[in-house]
């Protein structure tokens, strides 16, 4: 889809390595926040409910509960402000978009944990998007 000329423009904005994570994972998103002259790292913890688009436009949505209110935040994967995505728990899911979680209350909100056998985890996981 993307023309070679567009790639030429986008190239310099790609991250060298992209954190590997999947929809359904409970993650910590480390973001860089600039307050005046100070810089600090903020952590947003929650479940990845969607990943969309490709290339420089690729983004993901993380959902968490604050108090009793659902909060969703969207991050651009290649944004320099997204420092890292750390997987806390793998979720076993069968669809790409977990919007159904929005309507779930209480325990039903929980996703079954994905347990991977040792032979599978031994394989090195490739970065999702090639530079």
């Amino acid at each position, binding site marked *: 889809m*993307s*023309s070679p*000329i*567009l790639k*030429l*423009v*986008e190239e310099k*904005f790609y991250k060298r390595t992209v954190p590997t994570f999947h929809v359904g994972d409970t993650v910590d998103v480390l973001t*860089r926040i*600039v307050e005046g002259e100070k810089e600090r790292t903020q952590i947003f913890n929650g479940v990845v409910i969607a990943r969309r688009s490709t290339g*420089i*436009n690729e983004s993901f949505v993380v959902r968490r509960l604050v108090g009793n209110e659902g909060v969703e935040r969207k991050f*651009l994967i*290649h*944004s*320099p*402000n997204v420092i890292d995505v750390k997987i806390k728990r793998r979720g076993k899911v069968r669809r790409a978009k977990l919007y159904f979680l929005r309507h779930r209350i209480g325990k039903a909100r929980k996703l079954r944990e994905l347990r991977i056998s040792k032979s599978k985890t031994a394989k090195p996981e490739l970065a999702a998007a090639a530079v």
Partner: protein
Amino acid sequence: MSVIARKGVVQSLRQSFRSEWVEYMKAALIGTKVGMTRVIGEGGAVTTVTVIKAGPCVVTQVKSCDSDGYDAVQLGFENAKPHRSTMALIGHAAKAKTGPKRFSREFRLQEPADVNLGEVLTVSQFAEDVSFVDVVGTTKGKGFAGTMKRHGYGGLTASHGVERKHRSPGSIGGASNLGTGRGVKKGKKMSGHMGCVRRTAEALKLVDIDTTNDLLIVAGSVPGPNGGSVIIQQSKKRG
């Protein structure tokens, strides 16, 4: 105001507008729209941009007040196949010592041109103190479009007894329209052909220039489809 007086005003307005339009060409090129993408700036700020492959353009003709009655520069962009071009085009291009061009556009000037016949203009002319550009293109054709798409009419409601008229324009005027009962007002917005019109996107911020690949990266959108030809000029209103 009498009709003649009004005409005079209109004419003077048009002239003042025109003199603005004929502003001295500082930077202008013909190019093709490549497509849209995102650019990440300092601090992670994301800008939506359009990439335009602009130039190199050859000056195929320099018009002057003496010979043509006005000052202008004609630029040619992209080579055409000589065996598919007319001899007239080939001969015209040969004067500038190039081959026939697929696109040529004239840019009017206020003072005599400081470019020479056969000179090659590139995106580098935008590098110096050009921060905003105007981009002219032909919008995407939408075919025969209804009033909702074409003029943003609201249509009728989905329910409340409305039947098969959900996208209709509604009333187009009463019998006493214009106070004379002459029917529908002239220029009433109705459905019809939409798109395929020359449009100018004004004062788009010039985000980046790639002189090695002849690319102009412009913030926002530009009229026309990807691959459509566009004219890029230094912004008339914001420079």
